[in-house]
């Protein structure tokens, strides 16, 4: 049976109150197309388990989808503290479970080895009952075989695959596109009040709807400017 599905179908049976892992690494590979789909669906009371993250956990928290989150690191780095994570935690309306451990130290070693790849993802997948993967593109089995050293998750671990080009936007997808700093700043700026954040969600999540419309909204020249030329695939 094909594991290919659409974004909205992929998240359709994630029940309110589910525990949801979010992969990526701060401004790399945040599963934003799936996050926007969860917000559109009106998910509630999720317990988030993000790897070190930024906009993925923050947007779900800001949109009222989460009741708790694990926190290894949730921040907007040079753009400031994560606005909604901060606000809800300070208001006492978000339960935060702070975590640390040797795994995080390992992450720092990875960063030093210049492996900014979201390397906690394989661990996260092994710890999850259902795994939805959002990918920028689907390639032939031949390409996968030729680059088998790059395989992060073997297919047996994957339940559903969503092809969402630019699905990590505004964070980066190594080898394909950089983080969109302008958009990250726009998000932080929009997060100063419920009203402005509501307008942001309306524009980029609800009205835009499916990923194609989201990309049209961003515009071709904007996306072209974020593209990187080198690829990890041969």
């Amino acid at each position, binding site marked *: 049976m094909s594991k290919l599905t659409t974004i909205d179908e992929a998240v359709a049976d994630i029940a309110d109150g589910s525990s949801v892992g979010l992969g990526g690494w701060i401004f790399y590979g945040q599963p934003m197309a799936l996050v926007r789909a969860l917000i559109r669906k009106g998910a509630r009371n999720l317990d988030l388990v993000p790897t070190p993250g930024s906009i993925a956990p923050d947007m779900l928290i800001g949109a009222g989808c989460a009741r708790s989150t694990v926190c*290894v*690191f949730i921040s907007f780095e040079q753009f400031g503290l994560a606005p909604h994570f901060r606000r809800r935690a300070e208001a006492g309306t978000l339960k935060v479970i*702070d975590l640390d451990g040797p795994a995080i130290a*390992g992450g720092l070693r990875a960063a030093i080895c210049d492996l900014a790849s979201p390397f906690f993802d394989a*661990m996260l997948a092994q710890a999850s009952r259902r795994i939805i993967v959002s990918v920028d593109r689907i390639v032939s089995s031949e390409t996968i075989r030729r680059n088998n050293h790059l395989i992060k998750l073997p297919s047996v671990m994957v339940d559903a695959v969503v092809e969402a080009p630019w699905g990590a936007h505004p964070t980066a997808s190594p080898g394909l596109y950089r983080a969109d700093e302008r958009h990250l700043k726009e998000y932080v700026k929009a997060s100063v009040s419920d009203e402005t954040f509501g307008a942001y969600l309306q524009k980029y999540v609800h009205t835009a709807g499916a990923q194609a419309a989201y990309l049209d909204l961003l515009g071709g020249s904007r996306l072209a400017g974020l593209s990187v030329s080198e690829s990890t695939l041969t």
Partner: protein
Amino acid sequence: MDLPNMIDFIDWRIHFFDFAILSALQVDRFGNINTVVVGDHARPKVRGPGTVGISALCGLAKRFYIVLTRHERSAFVPRVDFICGAGHLEGGDSRERAGLPAGGPKLVVSPLGVFDFEPVSKAMRVRSLHPGVTVDEVRSATGFELVVNGTPPTTVMPTEHELMLLRTRVDTRRTLKRKFS
């Protein structure tokens, strides 16, 4: 080997960092640092970004340095609200008694001066003050009693060459300059 698996095989005492440089929401008298919360964890006054790898860095790196971009009583506190990076814990030999390798915080750098830790009590001590800063000024901006031995020297300023390297080789995108000037 996959990195998550590799973690199990690393002997941190041998392979860990020589030193780390960290910032924080709060630092206390014994060099413990906090990036998690100011105030009560369940309803914090400030919610910070989290622990990241700070506990491992402060606990296991051979030594570490603390750099704060503000020197106020709210940042230099008697006791951090949440220890995510272990400094000298309760002072004296409490760090070693807790099972952590010796080392810990070596220097604290703030906009007012440079601080180290008195060898026996492990309490924070004024090592030098930046040009124009007085002992009274740094005392009133600090939330605990600093150790002051005599008249502290003036901090040696970076040389033209060092500044040139920082401005042209390190901060090539002028991120730091924009943020702190």
